[in-house]
């Protein structure tokens, strides 16, 4: 079986080559984050002269009053975390009553939620802005340029898929479990939060990953709702403000990009299996 071993060896060489090719852009980002402006344009492919420069660049990004990276980072964390917590609570409790209430109305609401998954963002984006402004004025709250508005929008755009995923999972939980709790004197809402909610853990993880990656990286929605140059910015907004400028400071742009990538990569290295599973599960179901 000599040819077979040669075959496997060839495949391994191919795999390594492809692997390096796929990671090449990351290599470019890392080495150029540690360079001075002149070195970048002269030799973008070479290793940096002093790796220490990377810390200088990181510090100047983090403290620059123009880029406002640190506040954008904080805003991104707040928006992502709040949206995720609320989405997981609201979507799971909604899915539960929709599964357990067997009426035509309940089924109809579920179908309407699922149907909304095919609505592309583009068809709602212009009216969403004017509607948020009008509603905000009527109700006396600001939905544009505010945390409230963007978190509400993420709940609205994320709920369909999340409810769909919870719905599929809850259907497989035996009803006897809840009946036993009711006999023991649990109220309905207690049954959900004490009995069902903990059982949903694996599907909570899927919903968290799926929505977390999306919200953290999302660009167009924050661009519209928060706007350019607002007090509240997300990381993609901050990067685009800075990188879209006419004069390109690539050393700092690539450092900012590196800083945007690192949290996600670390997260991936820790929870790689559930991330891949979660992200793919969302699309297949």
């Amino acid at each position, binding site marked *: 079986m000599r040819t077979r071993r040669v075959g496997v060896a060839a495949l391994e060489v191919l795999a390594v080559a492809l692997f390096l090719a*796929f990671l090449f852009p990351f290599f*470019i980002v890392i080495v150029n984050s540690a360079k001075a402006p002149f070195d970048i344009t002269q030799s973008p492919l070479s290793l940096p002269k002093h790796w220490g420069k990377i810390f200088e660049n990181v510090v100047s990004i983090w403290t620059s009053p123009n880029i406002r990276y640190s506040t954008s980072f904080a805003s991104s964390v707040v928006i992502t975390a709040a949206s995720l917590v609320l989405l997981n609570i609201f979507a799971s409790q909604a899915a539960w009553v929709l599964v357990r209430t067997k009426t035509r109305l309940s089924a109809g609401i579920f179908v309407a939620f699922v149907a909304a998954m095919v609505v*592309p963002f583009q068809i*709602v984006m212009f009216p969403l802005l004017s*509607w948020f402004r009008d509603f905000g004025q009527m109700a006396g709250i600001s939905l544009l340029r505010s945390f409230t508005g963007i978190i509400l929008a993420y*709940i609205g*755009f994320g709920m369909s898929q999340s409810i769909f995923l919870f719905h599929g999972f809850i259907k497989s939980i035996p009803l006897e479990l809840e009946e036993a709790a009711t006999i023991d004197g649990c109220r309905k*809402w207690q049954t959900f939060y004490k009995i069902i909610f903990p059982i949903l853990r694996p599907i909570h993880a899927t919903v968290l990953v799926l929505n977390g990656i999306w919200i953290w990286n999302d660009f167009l929605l924050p661009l519209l709702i928060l706007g350019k140059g607002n007090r509240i910015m997300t990381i993609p907004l901050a990067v685009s403000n800075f990188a879209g400028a006419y004069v390109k400071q690539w050393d700092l742009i690539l450092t900012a990009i590196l800083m945007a990538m690192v949290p996600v990569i670390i997260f991936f290295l820790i929870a790689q299996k559930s991330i891949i599973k979660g992200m793919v599960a969302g699309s297949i179901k």
Partner: protein
Amino acid sequence: MRKAKHPPIFWLFLAPVLFAFLMVIVVPFVLGVYYSFTNWSATARIGDALKFIGIENFAKILKDSTFTYSFMLTVVYTLLNMIAINVVSFGLAILVTRAIKGRNVYRAGFFVPNLIGGLILGYVWQFIFDHAVPSLGTMLGIAAWANPNDLILGRSGSALIALVIVGTWQYAGYIMVIYVAAIENVPQDLIEAAQIDGASSLRRLFSVIVPMMRQAFTITLFLTLVNSFKQFDVNYSLTAGGPSVMFMGKPIYGTELLAMNIYNQGFQSNDMAGGQARAVVFFLVLAIVSIVQVSGNKKKEIEL
């Protein structure tokens, strides 16, 4: 005592998502479809100024060369992207399901680009195309790459290819995972039976494994189709719609995909009603194409 059909807890638990659904999807959707038949603009938002004008916005779109160009460009981009992503990811899936060392590391590596947002990836690749490629061209002596006055992103044709390259790099690992799951789900005894019958590994792949993967193909083709058609982020950061080209006697954006065309019509040209009408067309095309594609593929799936 008759139990209420919909007890308070039903409405209580549904209230938050129903509110978000109405605020973010239902009301904007209904308004959006209505606005596409009006003269809606920043100055004519409500009241008497807002007038119903029938299909005028849609008639204008048909005569607009930027929309025609964007539409054709998006069709070409979507086709190229679908082919490139699926060919690459299928190849990667075959590779990482073979008995090679460290295949989990490769799987993770191919998947990683998918975790980073399209906006940021677009800037990374802009740097690669504008600086790393010319430098590589000089090092390797490839004249076509080395000329800093003739960059890949400088011509609309090659810039479109650049969009496909980035799209493929970003998405192939994701689609690969779906193919890997499908390949690993093919019953082992089927493959062994074919092997005993003397089928070569290529024959086993195309006569046994691929026919069993039809359902996966339905999903991957659907996902790549929809995501390519809706591409915005990479378009925004990598090419920003440029460079300009002459089309029907007018200079227009050379790489402006539909999603960006809608955005620019609304915010750059300040034509909200026109942008909204484009969005309605966009929605209809997307809906029709996805239904046709999924139902066409479903017919070919094998039920076991």
